[in-house]
């Protein structure tokens, strides 16, 4: 059996979070009633004309700089011609041969191995409207209704080199790209809302091949998980096809998440001839060094830099820091919580441990986490100060996610304050020793385990509130007498 190499390239479309659309002043806000953020321009009315939103260029330059691209000084737009009901002019204003950015890269790692994924180009274009189908899928619908609220929203398309060799690498690239886009604040990257979309170009080649195999383009990947599953499925499909003596067809396929398969979208029509030509209603955009330098100087902190900062300022380990900065929201939460505690390491542990577990369970992002950063910070501080044992802290945490009460209050309400008063503790120690003469005997006989047993008994007696370190010390003192 031959060994095959997986080759993946990703095309990512990101909606830019400008206030107005790319070529008209309609609002870009999401979720409104159909056809309420529209005008003659984005509706494609006769006689309407496009005027470019400056912020689109700014965001595109910012993105290009954040992923190490060369910003192209001379830019123009082109018409990409095809008929589809969600395209209000039946052409899309895009950039064909003079895109705004060329040649960049993103560094990822899968496991410990670092890898550089190349970026071929980034260009500006406009989004299409939305089709609401009468049936459950496009194939089973008798009719559709078109909403043009989204038509004209600015997009950047980021095309990677076919440098990824596994589903894991593709996922890591997409996660990193998403983080960068969030950090530089050009896109809110909500995959479920479609503000970031990914198509995968997948092919296989045998180990001894000198050329890439024919690739298929896979669309409708709505989550990181879908991306991984689709790559795994498609690679297998192509290998099977080849092994059976067939050829992979260059085509567009759609990922069906429910069935876990890709399906061909080819219709009877031949491949699209987009008949690109320069957009005569727009004039070129010329970007000079001054503009580029200014955007560079205003570039927000990128994940890598933030990671370094957390390590040096907060003393975090590389692994922890990297995971904290993996998404902007998490990094921001960390920073906000860190204002309420000195224990950065403890905070990191909580975030990467219990908090992440909770978020995963509830299938939410940290922006929906019910506990405020201040409260989490306080919790960490309480543990550090010894007011709350880390074991009991977990109980408090459970209550905090219910209604975000201040941990101090919860500790009081639940009566969970750690007991550190030596008189009280001494009483418990004496009581427990009196109740467990056998343990004393065991200890004297050399069984150190007896200490642990006695500590456990005291913790039970105090319902977890006794300060374990102090108990330990006191017990040993008494036992050694």
């Amino acid at each position, binding site marked *: 059996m031959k060994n095959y190499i997986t080759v993946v390239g990703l095309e990512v479309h990101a909606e830019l979070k400008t206030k*107005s659309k790319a070529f008209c002043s309609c609002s870009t806000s999401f979720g409104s009633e159909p*056809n309420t953020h529209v005008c003659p321009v984005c*509706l494609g009315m006769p006689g309407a004309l496009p005027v*470019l939103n400056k912020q689109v260029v700014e965001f595109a330059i910012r993105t290009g700089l954040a992923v190490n691209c060369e910003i192209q000084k001379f830019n123009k737009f082109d018409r990409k011609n095809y008929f589809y009901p969600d395209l209000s002019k039946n052409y899309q204003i895009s950039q064909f041969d003079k895109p705004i950015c060329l040649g960049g890269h993103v560094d990822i790692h899968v496991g410990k191995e670092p890898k550089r994924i190349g970026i071929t180009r980034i260009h500006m274009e406009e989004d299409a409207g939305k*089709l609401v189908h009468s049936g459950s899928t496009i194939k089973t619908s008798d009719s559709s*209704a078109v909403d043009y609220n989204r038509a004209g929203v600015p997009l950047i398309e980021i095309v990677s080199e076919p440098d990824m060799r596994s589903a894991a690498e593709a996922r890591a690239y997409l996660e990193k790209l998403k983080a960068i886009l969030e950090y530089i604040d050009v896109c809110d990257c909500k995959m479920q809302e479609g503000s970031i979309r990914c198509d995968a170009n997948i092919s296989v080649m045998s180990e001894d091949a000198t050329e890439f195999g024919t690739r298929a383009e896979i669309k409708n990947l709505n989550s990181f998980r879908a991306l991984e599953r689709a790559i795994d499925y498609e690679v297998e499909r192509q290998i099977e096809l080849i092994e059976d003596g067939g050829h992979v067809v260059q085509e567009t396929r759609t990922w069906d998440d429910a069935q876990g398969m890709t399906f061909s979208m080819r219709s009877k*029509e031949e491949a699209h001839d987009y008949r690109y030509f320069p957009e005569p209603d727009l004039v070129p955009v010329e970007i000079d060094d001054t503009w580029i330098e200014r955007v560079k100087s205003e570039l927000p902190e990128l994940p890598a830099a933030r990671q370094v900062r957390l390590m040096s300022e907060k003393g975090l380990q590389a692994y922890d820091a990297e995971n904290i900065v993996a998404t902007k929201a998490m990094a921001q939460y960390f920073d906000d919580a860190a204002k309420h505690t000195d224990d950065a390491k403890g905070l990191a542990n909580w975030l990467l441990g219990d908090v992440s577990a909770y978020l995963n369970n509830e299938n939410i992002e940290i922006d929906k986490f019910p506990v405020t950063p201040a409260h989490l910070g306080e919790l960490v501080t309480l543990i550090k100060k010894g007011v709350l044992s880390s074991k009991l802290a977990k109980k408090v945490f459970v209550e905090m996610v219910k209604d975000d009460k201040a941990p101090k209050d919860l500790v009081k309400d639940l009566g969970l304050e750690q007991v550190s008063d030596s008189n009280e503790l001494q009483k418990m120690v004496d009581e427990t020793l009196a109740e467990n003469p056998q343990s004393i005997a065991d200890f004297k006989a050399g069984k150190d385990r007896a200490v642990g047993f006695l500590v456990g008994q005291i913790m039970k007696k105090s319902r977890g509130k006794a300060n374990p370190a102090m108990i330990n010390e006191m017990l040993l003192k008494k036992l050694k007498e």
Partner: protein
Amino acid sequence: MKVTAKEVKHIANLSRLTVPDSEMGKFTEQFNQILNYADILQELDTTGIVPTPYVLPISNVLREDIAVEGVSHEEALLNAPDVHNGGFKVPRVIE
């Protein structure tokens, strides 16, 4: 013949148009007449000549990123042939 009836049909398809069979002959003939005439352009040596996609020597016409209210929902749908749930209704989108 620069273009055959078959090619004319393909172009028509790309343009979302139909040329009825009865007119196909005349149409193809007129089409060819124009394209044959276009051959005179090949007489010109245009090596190194920069094409003119833009008549005006202007660049960077940019607008500030301010959202402005567009047309009302009713105006947007004023000329719609068919409407459903506030959207423009169309028959099934794929063949």
